[in-house]
């Protein structure tokens, strides 16, 4: 079989992805440590967790702005757009491939091309992650970093409480996304192939 090499991930995207990945992992670990902190069994000391969490949060937030600008000025943004029409069918087709087709050795229903580097499931999950979840945790995170900016009370509840709960829920879904993302990236003939791609920029098929 002929070996195709596609340059899918430009250098700015790979640097952003690497820094973002590191920050997200540290944010999840320190976030869990703070939220489930126990005097007797602290995973990481609360003070250290706060320090790391704040630092990584700020770096990831700056990174998010760079990602948005990058998507705006380059053509990378098109990979996060999807048509509603026929979406359900495309998602179902891709899901069936992961569940059955992949094991039967069927060809990929949505082969990777320069114009179409994500399959429909990736497209929608990446778009939700980057345009819904990350803005949610960035905005609520900034609110918790500067609580004086938050409404003192909203709908009879403490503004800080609402912000903190939204931040926790957003953080949970980002963690959930990361877990699935890391596993799905390992699906292929070689489990490390996609990991290598995001380092080198080239996708091999």
């Amino acid at each position, binding site marked *: 079989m002929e070996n195709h090499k596609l340059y899918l991930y430009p250098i700015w995207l790979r640097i952003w992805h690497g820094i973002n990945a590191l920050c997200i992992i540290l944010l999840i670990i320190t976030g869990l440590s703070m*939220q489930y902190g*126990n*005097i007797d069994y602290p995973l990481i000391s*609360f*003070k250290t967790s*706060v320090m790391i969490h*704040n630092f990584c949060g700020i770096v990831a937030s700056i990174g998010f702005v760079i990602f948005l600008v990058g998507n705006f000025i380059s053509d990378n943004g098109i990979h996060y757009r999807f048509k509603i029409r026929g979406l359900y069918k495309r998602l179902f087709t891709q899901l069936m491939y992961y569940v059955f087709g992949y094991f039967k050795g069927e060809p990929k229903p949505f082969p990777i091309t320069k114009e179409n580097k994500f399959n429909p499931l990736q497209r929608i999950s990446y778009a939700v992650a980057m345009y819904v979840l990350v803005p949610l945790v960035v905005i609520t995170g900034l609110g918790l970093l500067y609580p004086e900016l938050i409404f003192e009370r909203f709908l009879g509840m403490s503004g800080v409480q609402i912000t903190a709960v939204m931040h926790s829920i957003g953080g949970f879904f980002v963690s959930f996304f990361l877990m699935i993302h890391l596993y799905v990236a390992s699906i292929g003939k070689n489990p490390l192939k996609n990991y290598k791609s995001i380092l080198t920029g080239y996708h091999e098929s």
Partner: protein
Amino acid sequence: MMKYCKPLLLVLYCFLSVIFNNLYAQNEPVPLSEDNLKCASCHGSKYYSFTNPLTEETNRKRMNPFFIIDTARYVSGVHRSFSCSDCHSYDYNSYPHPSELKLEPKFSCIDCHGGDETFAKYQFDKIEEDVNNSAHRNAFGTQFKCEMCHDLHTYRPVARDEHSKIKHIVVQDNQMCLNCHNDLSKYQVLTDHNKPELLTTHSWLPNQELHFLNVRCIECHTPTDDTIMVSHRILPKDQAVHLCSDCHSTNSILRDKLYKYAAQQSRSDNGYYNSVILNEAYVIGANRNKYLNIISLLFFGAALLGISIHIIFRIIKKK
């Protein structure tokens, strides 16, 4: 001049009474008695006037700021029904005040409150024991007195008032500490040492301003004590709480300190740990929601199960 003072004071009193009546509607202020009005005519403002019998001139002078009584707050304080002469010598009625009055020993709180069943719920004897073991008493002996923290003329038990907001309790209680620890002239009443800068000594504390506005100094600077509402045993700084997770955890000490009053009232928990704190604040680590925990565990469990099954099939298929 003196003849205008009383009516002016009355007008001032009425005006401030209206304001304070709204603020502290649950704590009905009482008008100043005739005797108290006489004292307040001088000690109730920044300036006082008197007629000098030698020169027959009316003199207007500045009142020593430490001797000014906030009469508007006095009439809402716990001792509002007291006459000045109940605690101070009746001889103060004459002016100039006799100089030997300076040497007269003052009443201490325990003189009235100690060993009295009427005040049993306030546990004054336990408070006295705590104070005797506190860092202040150890450093300054009996020079350190109750009134250095509790202004007897204006004190209100805000924390025991069910209508009080936690923020009001925090402001009042922290002000007791800041009165000296943020004011060199008062701080040096007891010592010649330079006052430590609070912002510097607390520089290790993340989100310093947020902590100062939402918790009391005594949350960290007293031990947790189940036998009394507020421990008065101020700890030396090296024994104060430095471990964030003492508050930021499910078993937060805040529940047994700042929120002790509220925690004693029955409240629904709405699925939150330490839900009583949620009425006015959110403490990371102490306010997890049980239902969100269960839902998140179910999500992760389902995802892990799906991934595990997929991995097993991948391994089987590879063989």
